[in-house]
C-alpha cells in the first residue's frame, strides 16, 4: 500500500537517512511516498497541520518529539498505536523511557520515536585551529579564549546560522552545559521565573553575550551551511545538535582527526533526549491503517534504527542495538547515555507557543548587540513566568 510520509529532512545527511527508513518500509511490501517539505520544521509544520485539520491527512508525518502534536491527538485526529507498541514491547526496549512518555497521552501511545537527538555538542574544526596556531579546545571556556586568535587568522570563531531555532538551541545548550542540570530543570520544567531572573542565569546570559560576539559575521541562514563552514575550516566551531555529524560524515571527514566533538560543550556532560517521532493521522482506508502500523513497526525495528541513525548521526531509540559501526562522536554520546545523564528536551517541556517566544527573543538577542544581556534576561524571565 502506498503511504505518504511528510517530513522536513532534506539536507544531505538527512535525506540519506530517510532513504534507509523508506527502504525498510518498502521491504514490508508497502510503498513509501516521499513528501519532503524543505525549509525546516517551521515551514513544514503549518502545512502538515493544515492538511490534517483540513481532512486530507497524509499517512504519517514527522513531528518533533514532544508537545507539537498534542492538540491534534486530543482532537482525536491521530491514530492510537498502543496495540502496535504492546506487540513490539516498546515499553521495554525504548530508552530513555521519557521518549515513550512523550508519545503517551492519557495512557495511550500515539507516536513512534525514531531517534534521539541531543543539542549539547560543540563541533570544532581541527584544521581551523591549526591554521590559527592554537590547540583544539577541550571545552567551551578554552574555545572562547581561542576566539581572538581565530579572528586574527581570518577565521569565523563560531558559526551560527540565522534561523531562530539555532540561536535558541545554542542558548539552551549554554544553560545545561554552563549552568548545570538543576538550573535547566528549574527554569524549563518548573517554570521558575525567579531562577530565570536570578544570578545563575545572568552568568549564562553573559556567556551568550560572548557567544554572539564570536558568532558575528556568520551570514548564513541554514544550520548545515553553518556546519559546512566548520567542515571546510572557514569557522572554528559550532554549537549544534548531533545531526551535524551527518554533514561531516557526508563530506568524508573523520572524527578526531578532521574534527572534534565535545558533548556538553566539554563541561557538564548532560544531554537532552529530544528527537523526532512519527505520528499517524487517523485514516478511513483500512489497508492504509494497516500500512501505518507496519511503518510504526519498521521505525523501531533494530536494523532500521541502526541504519537510519548511522546516516543521520543521531542515537537510536533503543539500547539493545549493535552500534559497533558508530564513530567516535556517537560513541561519546552513547557513553553519556549509558551514564544516565539524560534530560528531557525543551520541545518536551515547553509548549510550542513558549518555544516560539523564546526563539523570537534569542534570535533577536544573537543578531542585535544593542540588546543587553540584562534586558534579554528580563524578557526571558517574563516568558518563563507566563510559560505553559
Amino acid at each position, binding site marked *: 500500500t502506498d503511504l505518504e510520509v511528510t517530513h522536513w529532512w532534506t539536507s544531505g545527511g538527512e535525506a540519506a537517512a530517510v532513504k534507509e527508513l523508506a527502504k525498510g518500509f518498502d521491504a514490508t511490501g508497502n510503498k513509501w511516498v516521499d513528501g519532503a517539505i524543505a525549509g525546516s*520544521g*517551521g515551514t513544514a*509544520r*503549518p502545512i502538515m*497541520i*493544515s492538511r490534517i*485539520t483540513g481532512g486530507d491527512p497524509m499517512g504519517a508525518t514527522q513531528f518533533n518529539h514532544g508537545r*507539537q502534536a*498534542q*492538540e*491534534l491527538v486530543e*482532537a482525536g485526529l491521530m491514530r492510537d498505536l498502543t496495540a502496535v507498541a504492546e506487540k513490539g514491547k516498546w515499553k521495554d526496549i525504548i530508552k530513555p523511557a521519557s521518549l515513550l512518555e512523550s508519545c503517551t497521552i492519557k495512557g495511550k501511545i500515539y507516536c513512534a520515536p525514531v531517534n534521539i537527538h541531543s543539542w549539547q555538542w560543540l563541533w570544532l574544526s581541527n584544521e581551523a585551529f591549526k591554521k590559527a596556531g592554537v590547540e583544539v579546545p577541550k571545552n567551551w571556556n578554552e574555545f572562547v579564549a581561542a576566539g581572538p586568535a581565530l579572528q586574527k587568522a581570518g577565521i569565523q570563531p563560531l558559526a551560527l546560522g*540565522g*534561523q*531562530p531555532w539555532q*540561536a535558541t538551541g545554542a542558548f539552551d545548550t549554554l544553560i545545561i552545559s554552563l549552568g548545570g542540570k538543576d538550573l535547566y530543570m528549574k527554569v524549563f520544567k518548573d517554570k521558575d521565573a525567579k531562577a530565570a531572573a536570578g544570578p545563575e542565569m545572568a552568568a549564562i546570559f553573559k556567556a551568550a553575550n560572548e557567544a554572539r560576539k564570536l558568532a558575528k559575521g556568520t*551570514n548564513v*541562514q541554514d544550520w548545515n551551511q553553518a556546519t559546512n563552514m566548520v567542515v571546510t575550516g572557514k569557522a572554528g566551531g559550532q554549537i549544534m545538535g548531533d545531526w551535524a555529524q551527518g554533514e561531516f560524515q557526508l563530506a568524508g571527514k573523520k572524527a578526531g582527526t578532521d574534527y572534534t566533538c565535545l558533548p556538553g560543550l566539554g563541561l557538564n556532560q548532560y544531554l537532552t533526549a529530544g528527537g523526532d517521532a512519527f505520528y499517524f493521522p487517523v485514516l478511513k482506508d483500512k489497508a492504509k491503517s494497516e500500512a501505518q502500523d507496519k511503518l510504526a513497526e519498521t521505525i523501531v525495528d533494530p536494523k532500521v534504527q541502526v541504519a537510519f541513525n548511522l546516516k543521520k548521526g543521531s542515537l537510536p531509540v533503543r539500547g539493545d542495538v549493535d552500534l559497533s559501526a558508530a564513530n567516535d562522536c556517537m560513541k561519546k554520546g552513547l557513553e553519556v547515555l549509558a551514564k544516565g545523564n539524560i534530560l528531557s528536551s525543551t520541545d518536551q517541556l515547553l*509548549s*510550542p*507557543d513558549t*518555544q*516560539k*517566544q523564546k526563539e*523570537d*527573543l534569542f*534570535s*533577536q*538577542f*544573537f*543578531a*542585535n548587540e544593542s540588546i543587553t544581556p540584562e534586558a534579554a534576561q528580563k*524578557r526571558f524571565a517574563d516568558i518563563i513566568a*507566563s510559560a505553559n
Partner: protein
Amino acid sequence: MTPHSSAGRPSQLFKNLNSKIALIPMMLVALVVFLGGTVWTVVYSFTRSGLLPRLSFVGLDQYERLWAAPRWIISIQNLAIYGILSLIFSLVIGFVLAALMDQKIRFENTFRTIFLYPFALSFIVTGLVWQWILNPEFGVQSIIRSLGWSTFEFDPLYNSDIVIYGILIAGLWQGTGLVMCLMLAGLRGIDEDIWKASRVDGIPMWKTYVLIIIPMMRPVFITTLVLIASGIVKVYDLVVAQTSGGPGIASEVPAKYVYDYMFQAQNLGQGFAASTMMLVTVAIIIIPWAYLEFGGKKRG
C-alpha cells in the same frame, strides 16, 4: 384621464433574477469567505485557541500580549517604514519612469518590457535573486571591494539597522513596473490641450507635471495607491525568501507574525489577534477610499 388600472408590481425578489444567480459565487465569497472568515477570526482572537480553534474566551489577553511583544512592535515598525517608503518610492519612480516614457521616445516597447517584466516574477524569486545580489560575499559589496574600495560596506541583509531597506530594494524592483504602466496610462489620458495651454503660458515642463498634471491624475494615483497598499499589508513571501525575518527579528512583518504564531507557535488566538490588528489597519486605509470611490457616483 383613465384611472390607475391595477397591474401589480412584480415581486422584488425575482427582479433581476439572472443577475442574482450569476452573482451567487461573488456573494458567497464576500459573505462566507471574506466577511465570515473575518468575523470568525475576530471572534477567535478573544479565545485561548492553540493548535485548534477553541471557544474559551480570555478577553483581551491576546491583545495585551501582542502589544507587549517586541517582535510585534518591530513588525509594525518595519511595515510602517517599508509601507511609507515603498509607497513614496514606487509612486515617484513609477511616475518619473512614466513621464520619461511619455516623451515620445524610441524603443518605448523595449523599455516598457524591461520595467514591467519583474512583475511577472513571484516574490519568492525576487527575494532569492536579491538575496544573492546583496550577499556581501558574492554580490555588490564584494564586487565594489574588488574594484579597490576595500572598506565599502553594503550588506543590508545582514545588518539589523538597514535590513528593511534591502527588502525595499527588491520590493521596488518587482513592483514599480506596474505602477509605471498605470501612470503611463494615466498620462496618456490627459487632455492634450492642457499641455498646449501650459506651453503657451510658458510654464516649464517640470512645473507642469508637478502643479498641473499630477493633481489631474488623482484617480490614477488613488487606484495605484490602493494597489500598492494592499500589496504592502500582505508582504510576506518577499521577507521569507530574502531574510526569513532576520537577522534576528529585524525584518519581521505582521503577516509573518500572524503565520508564525498561528502555525509554528500553535497559538491561533495570538495569530488571530495579530491578524485582527492588521484588518483594523486595512480598514483605516480602505474605508475612506471605498467611500470616495464607490460612495459618490452611481449609475442606473
